[in-house]
């Protein structure tokens, strides 16, 4: 009872087809009961698999590996050590970050959270380190496609620590980095593409909240408590509106 188009329909459902092939499959689906049933079964199984365990490395294992890699790093300095590893390490880290951001298949939230985690993994989540907004804002002018307002909210508990640029939505987004206690908050800004922003979401423990303001799209990404991230966003909105 399986249709000979089964694998092609599966590729369509897995998002592997280009627009032309996808349209052909959609035309086929209108007249094929077997493939319609396959679509439904695919959706059901996909939903069921969302409940399967995603096993993460334990902190213990992470520490164990970190330790054994530290031994390797000492033996071979300047290798795979990110920002502290000198230009070579930095280039590798930057290359990886770019790759992670550009390939993210599952949408903007994944791209942002991955970019944020990747930056944290490098040890330094910023390219320009400064607590002075007079330093960070001009840096964006040469390194990002937009120049969002930059304000330090130190008095309110969010300390400006620097900025970087990440490729988001096909642009060089300006990313302003804040510290909040032990947490890092990344404020992404890019030119409004005219498209609707995704709903606020949480991935891997990181929250991503979106809004539009003036001609910019904003996203705040952090693993801090949702309430505190909301407070931060309120500060940014108020400050941006005042500028």
């Amino acid at each position, binding site marked *: 009872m399986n249709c000979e188009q089964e694998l092609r329909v599966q590729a369509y459902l897995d998002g592997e087809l280009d627009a032309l092939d996808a349209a052909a499959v959609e035309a086929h689906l209108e007249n094929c009961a077997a493939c319609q049933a396959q679509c439904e079964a695919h959706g059901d*199984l996909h939903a*069921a698999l969302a*409940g399967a365990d995603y096993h993460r490395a334990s902190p213990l*294992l992470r520490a164990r*590996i970190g330790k054994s890699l530290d031994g390797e790093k000492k033996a071979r300095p300047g290798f795979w050590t990110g920002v502290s590893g000198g230009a070579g390490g930095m280039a590798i880290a930057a290359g990886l970050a770019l790759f992670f951001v550009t390939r993210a298949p599952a949408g903007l939230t994944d791209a942002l959270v991955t970019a944020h985690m990747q930056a944290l993994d490098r040890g330094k989540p910023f390219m320009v380190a400064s607590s002075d907004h007079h330093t960070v804002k001009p840096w964006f002018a040469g390194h990002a496609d937009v120049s969002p307002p930059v304000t330090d909210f130190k008095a309110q508990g969010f300390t400006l620590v620097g900025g970087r640029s990440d490729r988001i939505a096909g642009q060089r987004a300006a990313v302003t980095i804040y510290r909040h206690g032990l947490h890092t908050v990344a404020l992404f800004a890019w030119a409004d593409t005219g498209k609707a922003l995704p709903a606020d979401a949480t991935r*891997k423990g990181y929250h991503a909240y979106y809004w539009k303001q003036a001609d910019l799209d904003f996203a705040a990404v952090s693993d801090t408590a949702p309430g505190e991230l909301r407070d931060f966003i309120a500060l940014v909105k108020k400050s941006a509106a005042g500028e």
Partner: protein
Amino acid sequence: MPHLDAAYNLARWLTRNPAEADDIVQDAMLRAFRAFDGFRGDAAKPWLLAIVRNCHLNALGQKKRQAAVPLEDQIVAGDPTPEGHVLAADDGRRINAALAKLPEEFREVVVLRELEEMSYREIADVTGAPIGTVMSRLARGRALLRVELAGDQT
């Protein structure tokens, strides 16, 4: 350490054993680290997961040589509960058990596609199989899962 969770998730689903997964991931991260100079591709995640998979196959080969415990017995021992019916409402548990039961060649492609959200091309890179084989294994794996889940309900 980029992709450590992905590496661990794959190792756990391949071995179905936390301690073995720990060892395999540690081995794989060290190998990846040492081999990174030679890595010139643009896809670090498939590259790392391919190393994890190789480490798993090496460990499996060693284990097979050492002990004559049939794989089937290990699978049964790893199954969560004999009173599966009581827990029929627990969907997470059911899908976990069904996935764990799947033969490895199908389990790995389903995990890479559905849990890691990798493309066919990336899965082919991890498993070393042609894309056509990835597609047919995915279809077969999904069909087997459906049968397992349906049988579970009766």
